[in-house]
């Protein structure tokens, strides 16, 4: 099922790319320009991933393992940039410093909104790891710095690599930021070629992009296997972690997260404020409320569908790892890496050809969300299931539960916070999603993102501002909820 979902768009892509024969396909692929494009995409993804790793891991450590002032507020605040759609952030930066357009701007915007993909899972892993190992290392003569490198970091490696993968794929497949920053990478060029009469080059480049993501996903799997799982979840009583005293640096160091927040949230806020104050257009409240309602509706439907598909796949791959579950997970990641444009258009094609009754109706749109965001669901739920000792399932069975019953009464119950987090993440992302929604929404059906797009394409920034504000406010709540997942003090 999960496999089929991803292979429909992938298959379409390959068919479109090769319908003129393999010769032209190879010609197009081996052009110097194509190679340059691919390298530029990879470079962008690599820089953004590296910066996000440093930022995400460093900040997560700072807010969980030190006596930084206002830790709890900072913990939540640092996850909030996730709520920003890339196009909103990019427009704000262009308005703030127009000279940033190009690579610098793309890196800046993508890093400031994508680092939470590393920060949030690492934060959760740091909260869940067994404090005893760090205490033992301190008693064995390692200072805080050495403990961080030799004990803490290996324990969050899995979470960090998973997060880095998401960042890399995000940077590779993002369209909004690179388009606004006028930085021609693969997605941007694909989108432009789709508009032209001959769509074959776009399909070829789409194949190339998909192949690149397969390589990246494979690379991540290799890193993961080579390192093994180092995470030691605390099975027993939850003791608080020993905190590193920052001493005189305590207050000065607060400037680090504060600075990050100022850059990541302050500039977009300033941008939105500027638009709304400058404009003369009046807000159509009815239209705004409609869009809010529609956004919540597609968000909820998308989240529900993803969780329903992702939960069995995640359970299977965490408990009975095998070729099939492996393939399903890979396929999900490949689906996520496909640009929304490609998924959107391929489902349009699919809908017209095979599922006419569904074309331009909500089910097809929800299907697109499942293809795009299944990996979020699987990744998060897998992590949650991996923390549950399998012996509990045996125990439930010895106490009279059937195999399915044991999963329902124990595994699902214990994984519920993780499933909730996955649903929240998907909800959030669906609300921000633009290209696939543009292609597949029912006629006359507008979400906040599509309204925002149509207003800003027409350069009526002041009319767009309320939608930008609404989308950020709507997204902020689930994001704040995500930042508290696994926080022991909030558990009971």
């Amino acid at each position, binding site marked *: 099922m999960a496999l089929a979902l991803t292979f429909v768009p992938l298959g379409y892509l390959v068919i479109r790319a090769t319908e003129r024969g393999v010769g032209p396909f190879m010609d197009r692929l081996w052009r110097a320009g194509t190679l340059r494009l691919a390298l530029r995409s990879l470079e962008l993804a690599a820089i953004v991933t590296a910066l996000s790793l440093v930022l995400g891991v460093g900040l997560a450590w700072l807010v969980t393992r030190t006596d930084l002032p206002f830790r709890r507020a900072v913990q939540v605040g640092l996850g909030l940039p996730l709520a920003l759609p890339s196009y909103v952030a990019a427009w704000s930066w262009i308005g703030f410093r127009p000279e940033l357009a190009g690579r610098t701007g793309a890196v800046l915007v993508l890093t400031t909104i994508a680092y939470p993909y590393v920060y949030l899972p690492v934060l959760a892993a740091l909260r869940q790891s067994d404090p005893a190992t760090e205490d033992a290392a301190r008693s064995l003569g390692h200072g805080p710095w050495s403990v961080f490198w030799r004990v803490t970091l290996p324990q969050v490696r899995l979470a960090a690599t998973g997060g880095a993968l998401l960042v890399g794929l995000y940077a590779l497949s993002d369209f909004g930021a690179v388009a606004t920053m006028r930085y021609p990478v693969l997605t941007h060029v694909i989108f432009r070629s789709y508009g032209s009469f001959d769509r074959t080059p776009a399909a070829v480049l789409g194949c190339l992009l998909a192949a690149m993501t397969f390589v990246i996903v494979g690379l991540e799997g290799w890193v993961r296997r080579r390192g093994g799982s180092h995470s030691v979840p605390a099975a027993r009583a939850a003791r608080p972690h020993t905190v590193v005293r920052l001493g005189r640096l305590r207050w000065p160091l607060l400037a680090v997260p504060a600075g990050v927040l100022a850059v990541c949230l302050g500039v977009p806020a300033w941008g939105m404020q500027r638009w709304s104050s400058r404009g003369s257009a009046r807000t159509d409240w009815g239209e705004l409320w409609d869009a809010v309602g529609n956004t919540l509706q597609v968000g909820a439907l998308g989240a529900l569908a993803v969780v329903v598909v992702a939960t069995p796949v995640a359970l299977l791959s965490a408990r009975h790892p095998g070729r099939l579950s492996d393939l399903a997970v890979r396929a999900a990641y490949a689906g996520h890496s496909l640009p929304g444009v490609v998924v959107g258009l391929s489902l349009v094609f699919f809908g017209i050809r095979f599922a006419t009754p569904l074309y331009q109706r909500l089910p097809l749109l929800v299907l697109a969300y499942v293809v795009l965001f299944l990996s979020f669901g699987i990744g998060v739920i897998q992590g949650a299931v991996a923390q549950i000792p399998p012996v509990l399932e*045996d125990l439930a069975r*010895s106490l009279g539960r059937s195999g399915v019953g044991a999963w329902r009464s124990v595994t699902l119950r214990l994984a519920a916070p993780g499933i909730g987090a996955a649903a929240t993440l998907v909800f959030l992302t669906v609300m921000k999603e633009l290209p696939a929604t543009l292609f597949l929404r029912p006629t006359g059906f507008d979400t906040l993102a599509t309204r925002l797009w149509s207003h800003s394409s027409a350069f009526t920034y002041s009319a767009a501002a309320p939608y930008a504000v609404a989308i950020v406010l709507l997204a902020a709540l689930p994001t704040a909820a995500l930042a508290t997942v696994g926080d022991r003090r909030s558990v009971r």
Partner: protein
Amino acid sequence: MSTLRAEGLVRTYRGREPVEALRSVSIEAGDGDLVAVLGPSGCGKTTLLRTLAGMEHPDAGTILLGDRVLDGPGAHVAPERRAIGLVPQEGALFPHLDVGGNIAFGLRRLSRAERRARVATMLDLVDLPGYERRRPHELSGGQQQRVALACALAPSPEVVLLDEPFSALDTGLRAALRSQVLATLKEAGTTSLLVTHDQTEALTMADTVAVMREGRIVQAGPPHEVYRRPADAWAAAFLGDAVLLPGRRLGPSSVECALGTLRLAPDFAHHDGEEVTVFCRPEQVQPAAAASEDRSATVCGVRFTGPEVLVELDLHAGGTRLSARWPSTLLPTVGDTPCVAVTGDVLAYPPG
């Protein structure tokens, strides 16, 4: 009748290098008995436990509970239908349920009032009355273990399986908990099977000890039997400190070695050749008044353990070194030259 009987169990894990976890294991736990499966880690004892519980399917062999076939050719009863309880390693509990919820987990058929009464009874049984509302993480290791036992016993299973239940606890607590768990199991009258790598645990708790090695049961019998008359030199050394000396068979019931001429235990399949390895326990080597048959030795090491001393001896004849266990009232000092003699019978194994 809750006799658990397994015959010829075979389980091989397929893979690039197949692992033969069970190679024809037969074991029997009589009604109300406690059987300890004792073996080093990796000997297949956890696989045996999981197979008996129904989590693993055996490749061959049968498992019977009374006259009910649990596993056999073409038959496999699901774990939840076996009436076999499980106490997992380190007393794992469901972290999302409180103590009461954990114990009631296997009691779905009962009404709410019956369930509450049963939970209270079980908590009394494990000596934790009033703990219903506690969360697992608020309990100490020993308390978690007792709650885990209560969970397993609550649905009145015919058999309880315990998987290294005390390995994570400290020594003092372990001894106390052992006798408490034993008393609870006897009070409940449940047939139990305990898997462990701890010799003391197996010998002190079990009615029958089954020694397991490389997927086979090497020997099974009452604790004193397997301790005093181990089937081979490996089992002898695994079950406790062993004195193993080269010797020569003199006749059907006597053997000669550095400790003199010794009597062989009756009713034991001693090695038949002339060259043998003579086995006795260190506590059989005791100080004696000087006599012609006795052997003098030099004390070259003393380890005081409280009630006893472990003495390293250098036998003057043949320069053989061995250890002895004496009451600590006889505390020697290094350099003493006592005479020693063997009390009781010895065994003869193949040389090597």
